[in-house]
Structures are given as C-alpha cells and as structure tokens.
C-alpha cells in the first residue's frame, strides 16, 4: 500500500535539476497561503495561540 501520492513519489525519478525546479515552483505556489498559515509548524509552541496584535498606538493606555 503506497501512502503518498504518485506525484510525491515521483520525486525519486527526477534529476537534481528537475527537483530543484519542482521545489521552486511549489514554493512559489505555497506563498499563496502565507496569510492563512498557522503561526508555528514546528517546535514546542504548536499548541499555543497568539492574540491579535493591535495596531501600533492602540494598546497604549497611558
């Protein structure tokens, strides 16, 4: 039973140059979700949440 898609597994058949180009294209496309990504994808803060940061000046109560 293969657990990943054909496209993923075909990385093995690519030349280094093809793999570099594939990664570069994939990285370009992946930028589209930057605004929706979770704050952390690795490390020990994964289960934490961040409060929205108020615009500069709004948090100044003095």
């Amino acid at each position, binding site marked *: 039973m293969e657990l*990943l898609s054909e496209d993923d597994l075909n990385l093995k058949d690519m030349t280094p140059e093809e793999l*570099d180009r594939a990664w570069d294209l994939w*990285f370009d496309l992946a930028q589209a979700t930057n605004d929706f990504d979770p704050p952390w994808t690795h*490390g020990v803060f994964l*289960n934490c949440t961040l409060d929205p940061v108020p615009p500069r000046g709004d948090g100044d109560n003095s």
Partner: protein
Amino acid sequence: MRNIYFDLTEELNAEGTIAVLASGQAVVFYRLALMSKDGDWILREAPEACRRALTVLEKHGARYRPGAPLDVRWLAGGWSSHFEMSDPQARRVRCDFFSRPPRIRPDEVAALFSPEEMPEPFRVVGLEPLIRMKQTQRAKDYPVIGELARLLPPDLEIELTTDPDRILELVQAVGKDSGRSSVRAALSGVREDVVVALAREADQNQREDRARLDKYRAAAVGYLREIQAARIGDLDLPSAHERICEIAERWLPFDPDEAKG
C-alpha cells in the same frame, strides 16, 4: 539539490557543524514529498552555535517570530526559536531551531554532529531519528512515516512503519521476536488486527505528543503576550535578541516543568 533551506544549512555549518536539517525539508532531501515551506534545524546546544546562527540570520535580514530566545538556557529545556525573512524573490522563509528534538536520546543528538555522520557542511537528520521526530500529534505525519520507513533495512522498517501491508510482508522474515504490538498482531496473519494495533500505536503517540506540547503551552502563555506587546518582530535581530532574552528571563521558565500554575 538546492533550495533556500539547503543553502542555509550549508551557510550555518560553514565554520563548523552546528545545524542539522530536519522535518519537512529532510523529507524533501529523501525525495518523498514537497511538504513544508518552512525549515527547521536541530542546533548544537552551545552558545557559539547560537551566535553563529544569529549572525547568519541577521545577514539575511531575519526577524524574530514569537518563540523562545535562541539561547542555550531555553534550548536546553526543549524550547524552540522561530525566525522569518524573505528570499531574493521576496518569498517568505521561516526558520525554526531547537536543540532537543522530541523522542531522540541525547547520545543520538550528539551523533548528529559527529564528523563521521555526513560530509560537511550539508547535514540532514537520519531516517530513524526523523521518523521518531514525526511521531507527533498530527495525523498527516503518519503516512510519511510509512514511506520513510521503506528506505530503512527490513529489520528497522518493521519496527517503525505505519503500513500494515509492509508489516504483514516482513513479519515472518524479521518480526518474530519483535516486541511491537502491531508486529505481534501480524503473526496471526489477520490484517484487521494489524490495522487496529497500528491505530492504537498512533493514538498513543499522538496523545503523548499533545501532552508534551500542552506543557509548553501552559508555561508560555504570559511570555507570548509580553513578546507580542514588545513587538519583537519589528526590531532588528540584535535588538530583538537582547529584548527577547530580557522578557524571557522574567516570563519563560528554562524548563517548562518549572512553570508555576
């Protein structure tokens, strides 16, 4: 093979091995999947390694993201440090560092930095530790473990794979003495028993990882609020590092088990 994270690995290690590429980019290295647009490294737990990493990150214009200071006092407690910058094409690059990878013994971590492990300056974590690092709370990591395990010798594959069919294929040759519950289940030859045992193993791994991360979450609540209020990400890296250390000294326990309340 080249990408920004592979290049950064070489740059980090240009003056001696301090960083081993892990997680999603290691999966790219093993040519299994393009599955992470961030990079994470196991950093050698030494002040000079932190200084070198900060120097490289500053050169690339990186800023701190919410996370622990890149300082051995917190890294030794398992905390992680997080940075963000842009590559020459203005694409977002996120860099994460830690020195105590979960489920990896200290001697295994030390071996990652051994001169015999891999030619310098490019370093990537080995398959077996990578698989154990991927035994996380996230369901999506388990299919990847199955594919990574295929790259191991059969006697190791059977101990780590998440693929029931591979366990059934391998059990008679290399699994008869295994203590793993899913492998023992495979001795009966009933596939469903193996599937159920694998699901229980994955659930156990996920619950343990969730409990581990919840401990860090509980210890970091006030600290995260403080570094957000301090707008750490707006500061240049040397200023941010100084400020984040000041805040962490007041708010972030070195060891999350020391956190009160």
